[in-house]
């Protein structure tokens, strides 16, 4: 289990070397996206207003406050469950050359295949740890599509962003899948009895 500090935007080689359970910290700039952002891009066919090539995309809808000069102040920025947005991930990787998706909960087999094919990874952030995450986001640099507030396209400058666990790598491995398979095996081995001295079931 290796530890890496990566500078975003990323190169393909940065992500191809990552293995499951490696830990990553990120410096540089990352994008924030959520359901509505991706609905606009993929369902409505609107090109993203920023170049996502090589980028790290974080699944988030930040808590922010708009300042008089039009910029945004961060209040509480955390991460939302990725699995709902799974159907958009292959497109992010294939069409827009995103190199890493940061989220919680994971993505499914189709997205794992796309990571293998196009050279990308899924980095698991600790869900709910927004106090830390907010500190690690130094500034909200830009925002597009404010009509989708808070599900806009955001650009954050980050420092020591993490720890992020490599949960799905670019070689076809998924920690979520491994854990679920083991869990299925464990559950199959459990014996479910009626409790001793319980009245049993049904009527006699």
């Amino acid at each position, binding site marked *: 289990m290796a530890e890496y500090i990566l500078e975003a935007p990323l190169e393909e080689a940065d992500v191809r070397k990552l293995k499951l359970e490696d830990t990553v910290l990120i410096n540089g700039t990352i994008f924030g996206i959520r359901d509505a952002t991706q609905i606009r891009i993929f369902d409505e066919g609107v090109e993203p207003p920023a170049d996502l090539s090589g980028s790290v995309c974080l699944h988030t809808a930040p808590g922010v406050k708009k300042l008089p000069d039009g910029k945004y102040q961060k209040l509480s920025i955390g991460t939302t469950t990725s699995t709902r947005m799974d159907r958009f991930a292959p497109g992010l990787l294939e069409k827009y050359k995103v190199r890493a998706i940061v989220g919680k909960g994971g993505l499914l087999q189709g997205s794992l295949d796309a990571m293998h094919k196009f050279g990308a990874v899924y980095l698991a952030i600790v869900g709910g740890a927004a106090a830390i995450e907010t500190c690690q986001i130094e500034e909200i640099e830009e925002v597009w599509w404010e009509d989708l507030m808070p599900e806009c396209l955001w650009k954050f400058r980050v420092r020591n962003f993490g720890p992020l666990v490599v949960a799905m790598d670019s070689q076809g491995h998924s920690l*979520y899948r491994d854990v679920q398979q083991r869990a299925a095996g464990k559950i199959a081995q459990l014996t479910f009895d009626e409790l001793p001295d319980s009245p049993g079931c049904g009527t006699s």
Partner: protein
Amino acid sequence: MTPDPSFYETLEVVARDLYVKALQDIPTDVRGALSRGLEVEKGEGNATAFRILSTILENIHVADEQKTLVCQDTGLPVFRVAIGNRLSLDVPRLQESLRRGCERATAERPLRSNTVHPLTRKHTGTNTGQGIPIVKFSFVSDSDQIQIQMAPKGSGSENMSFLKMLNPSEGITGIKKFVLQCIFESGARPCPPMIVGVGIGGTSDVAMNLAKEASTFRHIGSRNSDPAVARLEEELLGAINQTGIGPQGLGGATTALALNIEWAHTHISQNPVAVNIQCWRGERAEVVVDGHGNTTWK
């Protein structure tokens, strides 16, 4: 007794402060359970699980120090209000105070608002709306106080809610299988380690309500007073933690911090089981208010 004239204004401020406190200050029983989980993962050599729980505990500490929100999801506001029978309350005014308190927390803190119309998805901007805040009432004998518990129920965990009208012939075995199946299906999504609430009996809506009470308002370490139910709580908790789903679903021994069951009697032909999941933050805040507006924070 009739409360002082300023009582309802006091309740509005209390509701506001409950909402903010719940979001910033993780309950003691939850902190303890997370710390115990950390030691277990350390002992078992689960490095990823240990790192995740360490980060969770560090995050709680940062939120304490900086007086910020622990998690960004400000949830849907749920209040549980126990009214003493000797207090003559204008309950609609009380409900209005709770609603206004949520609006003030949202405007003043400020908090992200999550409330949207279920069809149009249009935001209200206030964390209130039709049916929100959710308020559950109970009534207490020999008391002239009101106890208010507040939980901002997060969506990641709330989306992992389940109900099944089992056959009585499926018995307790059926209940156990169903609960395990729900946990398996939920996987990483409800931000494990979680607090699992199970509701058994009643009608379908009662079972769901009991599950919510069990996941969100029962303290970790409490046991159901019915010995058979308490045994089932223990057994299910053990089974869930044997799955190895672990913190954030990335593997480990700490999948659930607790499993609580609440029950009601049910019909001879029914065997309702509901599962509601609370995420690792277990956020709730509690206060007791007397008729003069004096508050005792728990």
